[in-house]
């Protein structure tokens, strides 16, 4: 693997994880009673979380198209764990497309309705559920990525 693809893979994994951690922070703060300081924190954190997911999206996409598809996929499909690609990677690459959009919605909700969260518990609860979904999907995708890495044999 060339240095470029190593760098892309590191960036893909780390920026994706950063996104998950930041949205976990969003979730933890959303559960609490919100003041202006916390709303500011929510706005910044969700925005950086979205940037993390977008970076992970771009680096992962480039790595997939120019390295994984040509070199790694055939090894996995010919190995003892072909399901790692045919099931896990197929699920991962489709669900992964959805994640930055969910994150973008979260950012918009926090920026547009942040001040009203305490007065409108329905919006706040929807935000909590959205953040939970983002963290859950992100964690599931990470675990799938690990399982796919394990299926690459010599």
């Amino acid at each position, binding site marked *: 693997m060339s240095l470029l693809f*190593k760098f892309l893979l590191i960036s893909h994994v780390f920026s994706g994880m950063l996104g998950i951690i930041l949205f976990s922070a969003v979730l933890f703060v959303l559960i609490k009673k919100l003041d202006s300081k916390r709303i500011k924190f929510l706005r910044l954190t969700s925005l950086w979380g979205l940037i993390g997911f977008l970076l992970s999206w771009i680096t992962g996409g480039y790595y997939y198209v120019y390295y994984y598809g040509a070199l790694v996929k055939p090894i996995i499909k010919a190995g003892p764990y072909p399901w790692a690609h045919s099931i896990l990677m197929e699920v991962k690459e489709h669900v992964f497309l959805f994640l930055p959009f969910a994150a973008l919605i979260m950012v918009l909700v926090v920026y547009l309705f942040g001040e009203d969260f305490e007065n409108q518990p329905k919006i706040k609860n929807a935000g909590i559920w959205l953040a939970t979904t983002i963290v859950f999907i992100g964690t599931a995708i990470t675990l799938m990525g690990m399982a796919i890495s394990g299926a690459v044999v010599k």
Partner: protein
Amino acid sequence: MELFFFINKGLHILTAISGVGAATLAEIFYLKAIRDGIVDESESKELKITYKVMRLSLIILIFTGLGMMLGWRWELKGPEYFYNPVLLAKFSAILILLLGVSLMHARKIPIWLGGAISLVSWYGAAGLGKLTEEFFELPFSNKISYLIIMLGYFVAIVITAFVLKFIHEKIQKV
């Protein structure tokens, strides 16, 4: 790259130690704080710092853990490392730790139960982490499955929860 993985592994071990230490101290400080029934300002400060160390340790631990796995991926360690029951149990312990902390944070579970999950998960993940790379060299490795490890983990949580609940009740009666 070798230097990167060396530093990464060192950092992983150090943060595991600081996380285990912080989880232990958090429990000790909490029990000390509730002894008189009131958590005063200095006690609250102690607890906040300890939780911050624990959170930071967990974040660095996750990143360095991923760094180690990237190293395995490049060395094509394959299923022997990635599908290792010890590693899978370690992941499960960390996920349960995150779930437990979230539920405790949202006040959906009592503090003694959250404390038990946190303590057992930190100690369990640190111990399992030490075993991961050496697991297949152990003479009894073929007798240990993921389910057996997780059973031991849940039994440890139940025992620790009972002990912490007993201590909490005893302290609050005094």
